């Protein structure tokens, strides 16, 4: 449904600055009816990719087809089948819920009666708030309105840019449950960017990008299993010294993320004995040690070396193996770059 081929976008540099590449030969193929989550650290090119897909930015090179239509040749055809939920509110706060819905329907050449306003709001908490002004709605309800107005025209493709940013956990969960339920019911193709990995757990595929390139693209379970079932996480008083000691004494190559050392890809039976050995040898140097199940966030940290306050790994991690290319890089034929 969404085919992105060798997409490159380079921003012209401001005065005395060199041009800044935001996307480099980026490939991605999202199947019809698929729920795909796109993630990456700040500055990884997610927003640029999103703006290109919305047709608001013309890339330096590459092609994008959505629903079989070339985005750059027939953008209006693509817009007809695409709904976009932006990170910032894109509704008129001086208008009521109903007026915003009617306006949006009109922009797609439909009357609100024809598209069924009541039906469009059925799944939301806005059913009885048609006449309420948007500036009096809570953040969660405003996001529901954003989604409802996009779904009003029954798009085949839905693009969402961090749609839950600014929402409290309960509203976030509520929003995502609604989104997933509608996506399944309508077999809609969804591409959503997010920083929150809990939101990616139920996606069909997760795409991780960095520096404008695709690092990984696979199902959440494959991504997690590629990290090994468990990892031992050690917080020492001197990470560099302990990393060196582990290398010399035990031939282990821990990854360093900030103050943490991680021993990834450890089997269930070995993790406990490894933890006991480390504790027995280096107890005085260790603040804490834990055995952890690999989560999507760990995959993200491993690949990008980014998390809150975490620096890129110092030791050689080597590329993760299983399925990390997924469909994303099939066409590029280039090796996946991982943080080395």
């Amino acid at each position, binding site marked *: 449904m969404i085919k992105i081929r060798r997409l490159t976008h380079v921003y012209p540099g401001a005065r005395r600055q060199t041009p800044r590449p*935001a996307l480099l030969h980026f490939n991605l193929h999202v199947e019809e009816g698929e729920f795909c989550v796109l993630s990456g650290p700040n500055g990884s090119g997610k927003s640029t990719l999103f703006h290109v897909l919305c047709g608001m930015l013309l890339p*330096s090179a590459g092609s994008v087809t959505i629903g079989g239509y070339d985005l750059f040749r027939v953008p209006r055809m693509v817009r007809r089948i695409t709904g976009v939920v932006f990170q910032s509110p894109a509704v008129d*706060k001086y208008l009521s819920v109903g007026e915003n819905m009617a306006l949006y329907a009109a922009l*797609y050449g439909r009357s609100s009666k024809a598209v069924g306003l009541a039906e469009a709001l059925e799944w939301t908490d806005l059913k009885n708030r048609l006449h309420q002004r948007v500036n009096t709605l809570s953040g969660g309800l405003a996001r529901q309105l954003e989604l409802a*107005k996009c779904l009003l025209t029954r798009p085949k493709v839905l693009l969402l840019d961090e749609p839950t940013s600014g929402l409290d956990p309960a509203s976030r969960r509520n929003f995502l449950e609604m989104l997933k339920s509608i996506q399944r019911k309508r077999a809609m193709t969804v591409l959503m960017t997010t920083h929150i990995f809990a939101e990616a757990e139920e996606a069909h595929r997760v795409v991780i990008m960095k520096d404008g390139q695709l690092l990984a693209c696979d199902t959440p379970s494959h991504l997690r299993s590629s990290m090994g079932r468990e990892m031992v996480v050690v917080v020492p008083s001197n990470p560099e010294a302990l990393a060196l000691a582990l290398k010399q004494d035990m031939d282990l190559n821990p990854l360093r993320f900030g103050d943490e050392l991680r021993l990834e890809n450890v089997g269930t039976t070995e993790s406990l004995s490894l933890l006991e050995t480390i504790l027995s040898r280096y107890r005085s140097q260790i603040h804490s040690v834990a055995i952890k199940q690999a989560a999507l966030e760990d995959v993200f940290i491993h690949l990008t070396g980014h998390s809150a306050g975490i620096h890129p790994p110092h030791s050689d991690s080597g590329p993760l193996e299983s399925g990390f290319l997924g469909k994303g890089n099939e066409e590029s034929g280039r090796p996946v770059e991982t943080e080395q």
Partner: protein
Amino acid sequence: MITVHATAALAQREFTRFVRQPQRVIGSIGQPILFWLFLGTGFTGSFRPPGMEGISYIEFFYPGVLLMLLLFASIFSSITVIEDRDQGFLQSVLVAPISRLVIVFGKILGGALIALTQAMLFLLLAPFIGLVLSPAGTALELILLLLTALGFTALGFLCAWSMKSTAGFHAIMMVILMPLWLLSGALFPIQHVPPLLRLVMETNPVTHALVILRLPFYHAAEQLLSDKDFLVSLFIVVIWVMASIWLSVLRIEKREKGISY
């Protein structure tokens, strides 16, 4: 069909937003009226240009205030372009399957209709200074007001589109839009200014907008439709309006493009 529907919806939105902001209604109607009353009353005693002895300044200034009203209404309308972008609304319009002309025209039409409504309210004051319009004259005046409002709003849209902030737009307004009005003959008659200034004023399309707005108060509509001066000014105003709309569409069509790598 989608074009008409979307244009009407965008224009209606402008109007709805306007009436829901009372301070905007008061500001855009009140300011020109205060200008008219204060300047008109103040200059009436000393305004005696040759050949216009029979006209008081408050009467001379009246069409100029109509023009000013349209200018202020268009400025306020144009500021909403920047607000729409800042508040995110513009994004949802830009990703809709409508042509850029619809976006421009919807916005401009909405702004122009707001300006026209204000001008209609101001027209109710005309009989109090002895300016009476016939039914045909009223119809003609309203058409001309709408045309001029379209020109101002399109010009404001063009300026506002490139602006990052409302503060920046205010600066542009003071150096581009206000001088267009000041040099239109609204405040003083064009006949008695130095030659260079007169040349500038005659090339100013807003001067011609003032001419076509002033004449229906003094001549019958039927008579004006065969008057050469009126038709020339009307032609210039139509060109100005069309050029402003066309340039606005060109501006909005322009998307940021990546450079080759």
